């Protein structure tokens, strides 16, 4: 059984200006111990997808349709208390900005022990022990001492390690990581990625790794789903997609990675901006920025399996391995 199966998820925000379809019919699944890279620009709906999985979408937003099956059980529409028991316990989340995720006025031990006690009926001493072990596991030196510190006494990288340690406290089946390395230095980013990869393999934890950084996904993920304007536009095994993208958007994303550029040539970019979700063009949402767009793009193409296990939502796909 897959750890997570998302089917046709629609999460919409009902604002005064109109309905924002932040996530519109997204489907994917993740097996045990596997890593899914959820890739897209800001505003493509990847973070909202992550929050939907944890049932943390705040009003005016809500999940309007679709299923999120966690180990076979549909968790859409579960009561708040049932969701709370899953959150931090079986499904954990790591946030983007480590400077903001820890409460500045509470000590690290308070914030870790409360997480243990929220789900397990054990003694404070045992909870402290487990917190200390978790800190040690993510590579924080002298965890006993560090437990007594406040968040501002840690560097950004160390804080993110603490957040990861908190996520690991209950050895969850699934971790949703929302750009957890974006705010960090490259060297720290590398360390954290290696650490997470090791832990996921050892503990059999599945990961949804949300990022806009393809180089991170290339090294970490098993599968990749590229999102654009609330929809998945391309999906498949990570190497297949990165080596031979079908969708012009994925193509452009890969082309935008500076290190792939030849020295002296102007950097490549995707022209234009992500369209406003309030006024999406009819048909393919990417057509206004696409060089291949024509009259056929006026109707929204389906996400079609163009080769085994490799899906794309495009009328004029690139020919596989030409990238």
């Amino acid at each position, binding site marked *: 059984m897959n750890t997570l199966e998302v089917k046709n998820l629609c999460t919409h925000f009902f604002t005064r200006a109109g309905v924002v379809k932040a996530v519109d019919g997204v489907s994917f699944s993740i097996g045990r111990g596997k890593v899914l890279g959820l890739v897209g620009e800001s505003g493509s709906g990847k973070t909202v997808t992550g929050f939907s999985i944890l049932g943390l979408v705040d009003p005016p937003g809500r999940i309007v349709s679709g299923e999120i099956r966690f180990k076979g059980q549909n968790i859409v529409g579960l009561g708040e208390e049932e969701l709370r028991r899953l959150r*931090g316990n079986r499904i954990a989340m790591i*946030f983007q900005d480590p400077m*903001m*995720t820890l409460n*500045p*006025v*509470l000590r690290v031990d308070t914030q870790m022990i409360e*997480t243990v006690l*929220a789900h397990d009926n054990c003694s404070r001493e045992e909870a402290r022990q487990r917190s200390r072990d978790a800190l040690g596991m993510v590579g924080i030196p002298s965890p006993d001492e560090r437990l007594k510190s406040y968040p501002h006494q840690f560097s950004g990288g160390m804080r993110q390690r603490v957040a990861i340690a908190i996520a690991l406290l209950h050895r969850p089946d699934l971790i949703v990581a929302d750009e957890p390395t974006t705010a960090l230095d490259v060297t720290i980013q590398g360390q954290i990625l290696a650490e997470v990869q090791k832990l996921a393999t050892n503990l059999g934890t599945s990961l949804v790794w949300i990022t806009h950084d393809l180089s991170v996904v290339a090294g970490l993920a098993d599968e990749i789903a590229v999102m654009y304007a609330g929809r998945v536009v391309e999906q498949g095994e990570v190497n297949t997609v990165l080596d031979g993208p079908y969708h012009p958007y994925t193509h452009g994303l890969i082309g935008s990675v500076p290190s792939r550029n030849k020295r002296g040539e102007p950097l490549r970019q995707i022209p234009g901006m992500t369209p406003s979700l309030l006024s999406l063009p009819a048909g393919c949402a990417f057509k206004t920025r696409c060089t291949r767009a024509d009259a056929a793009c006026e109707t929204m193409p389906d996400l079609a399996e163009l080769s085994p296990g490799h899906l794309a939502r495009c009328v004029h796909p690139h020919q596989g391995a030409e990238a």
Partner: protein
Amino acid sequence: MALYLLRRLMQSGFVLVAMSLLVFLGVYAVGDPVEILISPDADQEERERAVRALGLDLPLWQQYAVFVGRALQGDLGRSFVFNEPAIQLILQRMPATLELAFGSMFISILIGLPLGLYAGLKPEGRLSKTIMAGSILGFSLPSFWVGLMLIMLFAVQLGWLPSTGRGETALLFGTRWSFLTADGLAHILLPAINLSLFKISLVIRLTRAGVRETMLMDYVKFARAKGLTPFRITFVHVFKNIMIPVVTVLGLELGGTIAFSVVTESVFAWPGMGKLIIDSINVLDRPVIVAYLMMIVLMFIIINLVVDIVYTLLDPRVRLEGKA
């Protein structure tokens, strides 16, 4: 910490000196107490003798020097009217004002915090909107009018609560307090409520703003993602963060209440310092006015210091250091 306290102490000394100069000059500009204190039909000789006895014949700088010299020995002068040491007069009245101020502070926290918390957590609810509208009333109604209305309703119409005086008192630490007896408590209730209305509104608005701001922070969302109960998120994660602005403002308010509860004390005939200072100003009893203002300056200095120390307990990022 020790260095910090030393530095604070020196700063406080400067503030005291500056204030004493201002107060002294200000009070002498207001008017000549001789006209009020000495009976009009006293002859010239009597007048001069009285003026000399009060030390009013000396030039201003000498009067100030005499005042400072005595003040350093703990003597802030004798009241012209009561012929008692001014400091003693003030200290006699202080417990009454203190218990009234703390009582009103207690009420405002007891009522303001829960209401503000509720209004912050459910900003769209009907009850929240009622609370916020009510807090505007609390801000804008003049306290003397509210005091009169309270007396009319609870003392005159319903006859539930007494409206004047301190009632029965009991002895604690060598002074008499009203809040220790049932009768005293009944007496303190109306003036304390009167004095707390403004502060309740203040606490409501501060708490609500703080809660709404804090609820949007990533660490609250992360706390939810950890699977904490809403109760723990509200009362540990949010609460500790909103206490910082609340403590600051209430600290300043406490000083203001002790110093300037004049109106309420007058309306309820509460024999506190506020009434004493008004009476003293009316008869230009200079030593009492000066001593009172100096006491108030001292009190503000102490309150600010306590607030700063409470900060370090609430916010670990604040460390009291000897930095300028």
